[in-house]
């Protein structure tokens, strides 16, 4: 049972006591090329001294302390020191500009700022006049700080030497401060870079954090022998929820990279048991892995080519919730030993029990690829205001289109406008000093339950999976009043290797969604050859009934993930590709929608009439200035109710 009653500091102290006197490693930091281990007892002393030092310098319960710096052991000690004294930590991203830093530090009324190094101290010195409340700026990396004589600046170690030994036993004083905390105390202010207006400070309580890590732990249990590499910014909710919370609640070992530039290499050395990359990073990793294999020797390449199809086959059984037959399991076991594990170890991924992805949707190809290698990627969906992830794919139930199911005790619902609402014990305490924004972000239902308005549009499918469509404001309304997401449909259609571009149509004058699709000439051509379908030109190929059938399956696949009102009802395969030279796309291959709507108005009209065919003629300009005409017939394909 989940009991989110204690503070992070209390959990931490519990761990310190249980590991005290042992050589159990709490943290590691690579220093001078060697991973240096730090025990829980050593960590305790560092935190105690910093915490008592801050208190002796005037930190009070409920005060805020801003921290800006790279992930480091001192970052962690500073954060724990503040939390132990009943303060709240305000993380700033390391790339903020001085005015941005000034805004946040001033807005949260921070009394101290812990700034990692010279670069961060310089930013604060720039805006010193705007920060009268800040008593000291404390730095832990003293390189380059020799020449500074501003008394506003103070060395981390000097703070640790500040506490007054005459006030009694330091352990007792320190632990009494921790015991005085309650779960509802703010633990962290996470400033979210709102897309509009100034950043808002989401207040996250200790209970929020403890709940989130325990709920995740019910799905993916954590062990105190697990290794994490702390590389996500700790100012970001995911950094705090995936690094700090598991460390204090589960005793997970935190490893800090040598420098921001060496993170990749350090991950390879540590081989973490859990990790989160954003979807972009997973995508680039696929390309890197493939390139590595190409560069490898013939034996590795042969093994890879031999076992990758085995991996794919076995993965396919799992995606269909079927048991992998013994023969395939045996083959995969060999493949794992022979190629996949050694390959993944090149990237530090061979020990990863849980690998998560966030951000934009990951293409099924990428998920399949990693699953074939034996790394089951799973999507997390959430937001700062619900303490990070509120939904997660279960290991045995990964659906390509979805972003997962709610974690225990959290709930997800869709409002009448189609907005995703989230609630549960992870729901934040409001925005600091901004009740208007807080009220705007919350929805109170008839049972008096508070829900977070995510601003995202989505729907829940029959299995209880959430499907994220788009930001609510980017949804387009049909004449029926229903909304759909052009981005989502076009993006998902393009996941098909046979589709190069898709343009969805549908607005307040039309009552369903239709699509103009251009096929990928190379892939569809290859497919046609294999199927024995003869073709001559792009136009010819695109109008083959077999090709229509092929694309129809892809469209139906996407339709299955959509609510009925937002499904594609009709589509046409265009006789040519969209061309940047003709102004149909930008040079970065983004569709110029308005231009396309105008240019293909005839095609669009026929998608909304009863016609099944359309004659069109294109004017072509030759290089010598003459003009020619190309006539072609386009077939209009209908999908009844968009159903599968």
């Amino acid at each position, binding site marked *: 049972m989940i009991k989110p009653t204690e503070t992070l500091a209390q959990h931490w102290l519990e761990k310190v006591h249980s590991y005290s006197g042992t050589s159990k490693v709490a943290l590691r930091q690579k*220093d*001078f*090329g*060697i991973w240096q281990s730090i025990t829980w007892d050593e960590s305790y002393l560092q935190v105690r001294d910093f915490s008592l030092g801050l208190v002796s310098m005037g930190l009070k319960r409920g005060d805020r302390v801003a921290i800006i710096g790279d992930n480091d052991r001192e970052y962690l000690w500073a954060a724990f020191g503040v939390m132990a004294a009943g303060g709240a930590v305000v993380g700033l991203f390391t790339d903020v500009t001085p005015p941005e830093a000034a805004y946040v530090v001033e807005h949260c009324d921070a009394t101290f700022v812990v700034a990692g190094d010279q670069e961060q101290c310089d930013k604060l010195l720039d805006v010193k006049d705007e920060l009268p409340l800040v008593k000291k700026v404390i730095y832990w990396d003293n*390189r*380059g700080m*020799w*020449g500074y004589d501003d008394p506003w600046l103070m060395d981390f170690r000097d703070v640790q030497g500040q506490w007054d030994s005459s006030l009694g036993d330091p352990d007792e004083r320190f632990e009494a401060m921790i015991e005085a905390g309650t779960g509802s105390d703010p633990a962290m202010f996470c400033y979210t870079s709102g897309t509009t207006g100034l950043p808002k400070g989401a207040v996250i309580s200790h209970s929020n954090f403890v709940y989130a890590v325990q709920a995740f732990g019910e799905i993916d249990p954590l062990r105190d022998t697990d290794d994490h590499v702390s590389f996500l910014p700790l100012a970001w909710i995911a950094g705090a929820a995936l690094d700090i919370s598991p460390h204090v609640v589960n005793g997970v070992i935190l490893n800090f990279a*040598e*420098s921001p*530039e*060496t993170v990749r*290499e350090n991950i390879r050395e540590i081989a973490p048991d859990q990790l989160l990359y954003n979807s972009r990073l997973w995508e680039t990793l696929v390309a890197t892995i493939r390139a590595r294999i190409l560069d490898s020797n013939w034996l590795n390449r042969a093994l890879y080519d031999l076992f990758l199809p085995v991996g794919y086959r076995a993965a396919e059984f799992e995606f269909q919730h079927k048991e992998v037959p013994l023969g395939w399991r045996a083959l995969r076991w060999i493949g794992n030993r022979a190629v996949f594990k050694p390959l993944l170890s090149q990237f530090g991924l061979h020990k990863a029990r849980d690998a998560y992805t966030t951000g934009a949707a990951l293409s099924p190809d990428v998920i399949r690829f990693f699953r074939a290698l034996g790394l089951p990627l799973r999507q997390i969906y959430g937001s700062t205001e619900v303490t990070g992830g509120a939904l997660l794919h279960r290991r045995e139930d990964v659906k390509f289109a979805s972003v997962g199911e709610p974690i225990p005790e959290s709930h997800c619902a869709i409002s009448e406008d189609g907005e995703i609402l989230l609630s549960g014990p992870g729901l934040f305490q409001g925005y600091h000093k901004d009740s208007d924004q807080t009220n705007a972000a919350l929805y109170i239902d008839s049972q008096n339950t508070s829900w977070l308005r995510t601003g995202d549009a989505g729907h829940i499918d029959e299995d209880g999976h959430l499907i994220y469509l788009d930001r609510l404001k980017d949804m387009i309304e049909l004449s029926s009043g229903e909304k759909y997401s052009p981005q989502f449909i076009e993006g998902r259609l393009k996941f098909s290797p046979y589709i190069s571009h898709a343009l969805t149509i549908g607005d307040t004058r039309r009552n369903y969604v239709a699509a103009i699709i251009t096929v990928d000439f190379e892939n569809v051509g290859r497919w046609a050859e294999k199927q024995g379908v003869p073709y001559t030109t792009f136009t010819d190929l695109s109008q083959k009934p077999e090709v229509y059938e092929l694309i129809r399956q892809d469209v139906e696949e996407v339709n299955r993930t959509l609510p009925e009102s937002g499904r594609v009802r009709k589509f046409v395969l265009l006789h040519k590709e969209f061309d940047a030279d003709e102004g149909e796309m930008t040079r970065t291959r983004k569709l110029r929608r308005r231009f396309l709507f105008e240019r293909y108005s005839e095609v669009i009209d026929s998608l909304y009439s009863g016609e099944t065919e359309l004659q069109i003629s294109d004017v072509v300009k030759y290089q010598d200035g003459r003009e020619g005409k190309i006539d072609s017939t386009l077939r209009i394909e209908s999908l009844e109710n968009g159903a599968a």
Partner: protein
Amino acid sequence: MSPSHLRLHKASLSFGGIHALKEVGFDVAEGEILAIIGPNGAGKTSLLNAINGFYRLDSGEIIFQDQEISSIPAHKVPTLGIARTFQNPALYSGLTTLDNLMAARHIHMHTGMLGSMIYWGFGHKEDIQHRHAVEEIIDFLEIEAIRKAVVGALPYGLRKRVELGRALAMEPTLMLLDEPMTGMNVEEKEDMARFILDVHELKGTTIMLIEHDMGLVMDIADRVVVLDFGEKIAEGPPSDIRNNPQVIKAYLGEAH
């Protein structure tokens, strides 16, 4: 003024009929940053080459810490505490950053050939000790990410930084830097300037550098010596040099 760390007295050097240095004389005080500037062919690099023993002076003296060094062979000069970097990085391009820096520690190693072959014992202990010193330099110059990268494959700016590291690994009291910032972009120059100042401040190393970027020289140097056609035409703090008519003439040419 602090005691003289290096003194040149009437140093002259010629190649055939070309006078590379003509009775050049100045002092480098202990712990200062002295910049040498001058047009192409003014004799700047020849001067550094003479100091670290590549060239023999025709006449004159070079006194380093009260010792006349103009006739000491080049390979012995580093053991006196003089390290230098070159205009074009002179590193073992097939070795890693780490190995290049370890190689520079050679002058401080005492294990003989036999000891090295046995390795375990004294050799091993000494290796760790030197590795530690090298790791401190890697940390100082923020080159952790290229510790195990082969130097030849590194971009120019980083190679320059490794070369500075190699000079530092010798633990010199005097560093001669020959155009440490040529071919760098603004950001790399800023970094390099910061490292030079940090070395100077933290280790108190005396630094003599040749540099063309006048803005930078004026910012970081304590004093400037100006050479033109092998002759010293000016010497003094940057602010004086900036307004010295002779320097302006040498640099900008004379209006006719």
